[in-house]
């Protein structure tokens, strides 16, 4: 496993896609702070419920503010990073050395998870710094212990993102092709992003709404105490998603033929 991760590290640091992904995630908060500054200069007022991030303290909510973008960017990265191994045939170089397919799967998941972590950490740090510089650090309404809140919020948002990363990795291993993985990943993101909203409107499927991690990410406000109270439920749904998608992905990948 460590050997596989060492190989992944070499590939990752020399991959343009890795640097492009990180750049997008890190540039996004800078663009948003500039955008917010212009809005304020034009007489608009930043409102936390609408704008999500309004000062340095709410900068911890950058993942909530950019949820869809993060998912699409990391989804695209995972699709290429894994799909190209199949398309270039390089996966054969590893597996024919007798490496365990389960280890190979996990090495890809670990890399995707680490990239997501570094990306969202960078995004949050830059977001908090730049919004502090522009609007001051301020605070989050009804939050007394900010440090504890920030840690819990960042952790919960990351786990929600990670659950989706796990699904993207599964999709990439099942489709074995970066283009198909990209399309299915996109459809999954859009589908699970909007279907729960529809479920919410129906009597029969209402309870299904929060079976999807994106429902939390897209429809809840992480600065609202009532929603903050759902953190444990969010983590549970995320962990179940990670376990299920990894189990399905590994089960099918270990039984599939590599062309």
């Amino acid at each position, binding site marked *: 496993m460590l*050997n*596989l991760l*060492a*190989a992944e*590290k*070499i*590939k990752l640091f*020399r*991959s*343009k896609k890795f640097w492009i992904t990180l750049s997008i995630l890190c540039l996004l908060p800078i663009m948003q702070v500039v955008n917010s500054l212009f809005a304020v200069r034009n007489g608009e007022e930043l409102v936390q419920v609408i704008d999500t991030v309004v000062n340095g303290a709410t900068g911890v909510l950058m993942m909530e503010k950019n949820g869809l973008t993060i998912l699409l960017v990391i989804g695209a990265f995972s699709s290429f990073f894994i799909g190209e191994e199949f398309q*270039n*045939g*390089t996966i*054969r*170089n*590893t*597996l*024919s*050395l*007798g*490496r*365990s397919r389960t280890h190979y799967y996990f090495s890809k998941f670990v890399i995707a998870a680490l990239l997501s972590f570094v990306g969202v950490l960078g995004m949050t740090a830059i977001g908090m710094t730049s919004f502090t510089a522009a609007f001051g650090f301020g605070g989050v309404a009804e939050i007394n212990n900010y440090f504890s809140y920030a840690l819990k919020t960042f952790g919960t948002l990351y786990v929600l993102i990670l659950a989706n990363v796990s699904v993207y990795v599964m999709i990439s291993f099942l489709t074995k092709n970066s283009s198909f993985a990209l399309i299915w990943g996109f459809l999954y993101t859009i589908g699970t992003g909007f279907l729960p909203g529809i479920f919410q409107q129906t009597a029969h499927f209402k309870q299904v709404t929060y079976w999807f991690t994106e429902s939390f990410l897209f429809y809840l406000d992480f600065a609202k105490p009532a929603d903050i109270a759902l953190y444990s439920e969010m983590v549970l749904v995320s962990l179940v998603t990670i376990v299920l998608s990894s189990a399905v992905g590994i089960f099918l990948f270990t*039984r599939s*033929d*590599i*062309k």
Partner: protein
Amino acid sequence: MSETILKTTNVSKVYGKHKVLDKVSIEIKRGMIYGLIGENGAGKSTFMRTIMGLITIDEGNIELFGETDTKGLQQARRKMGQSIETPALYPELTARQNLQVQAANGGVSERKIDELLHLMNLSHTGKKKAKNFSLGMRQRLAIASTLMTNPEFLILDEPTNGLDPSGIVEMREIIQRLVTERGITVLLSSHLLDELSQIATHYGILHDGKIISELSKEELARETRQYIELETTDVQQAVVILDQLGIKDYEVINGTEINIYEQLDDVAAINRALVLAEVNVSRIGTSRQKLEDYFLQLTGGIPHAESVSS
């Protein structure tokens, strides 16, 4: 008796209703260069993939370095290297970086990289990315990559595919060098028997997923060698004359035919001697079965050998 590196017994693979491999059984011993010959779609690549564990088999047994169970096979595969069809490389990485990745995959030191780049004549590539390499360079890099983990057994699927004549010669020399200098056992495939005959020591002919013939280099040479085909109504007398001419390597095929395997340039002299001895010669001429014809004959393409009457 030399060690068995690979032994497959009745290996079968079915895709839907199509049996891609049908009870394939071969045995490769240490030091062999085993040439797997078959037309496109005969099942060569599929068979190689089953050995490498990339494709599961539906039936049969694979024994690799004496190991047969899943865990043992997985360990045994660490002694293998492979290059299947197109060279599997990271196009955005340089030759050195590609080898670094494979060294990490195999958990081996990077010390051999310079030596392998030199061996494969890739030392000069520097920062050039693999995607900008010629096909020959990519093939050489793919082989260098397989050598990173010190394999004892190398599987090469059509390694000369798409190469120009000089590239083919170079690749052949590389493979021969690996066998003689490093003692590597090789399984390589091609759809060209003529090409394989210049390198392989043993052959397996795969047709429609079945091994239809297995033979050694000597057996192939015997099967495809040139000879004088003599057709006469008096075989007994003809044999006496051949003995008088000092010809020893001949074979009486039936009551009217003799195949002569020596003095191939003296057809006219043999004919004259037979006629002078009043042996009725119906036909005499050199006959030669080319390697490709032999292959086609086996696979049902051309039923008879080419005959050239003189």
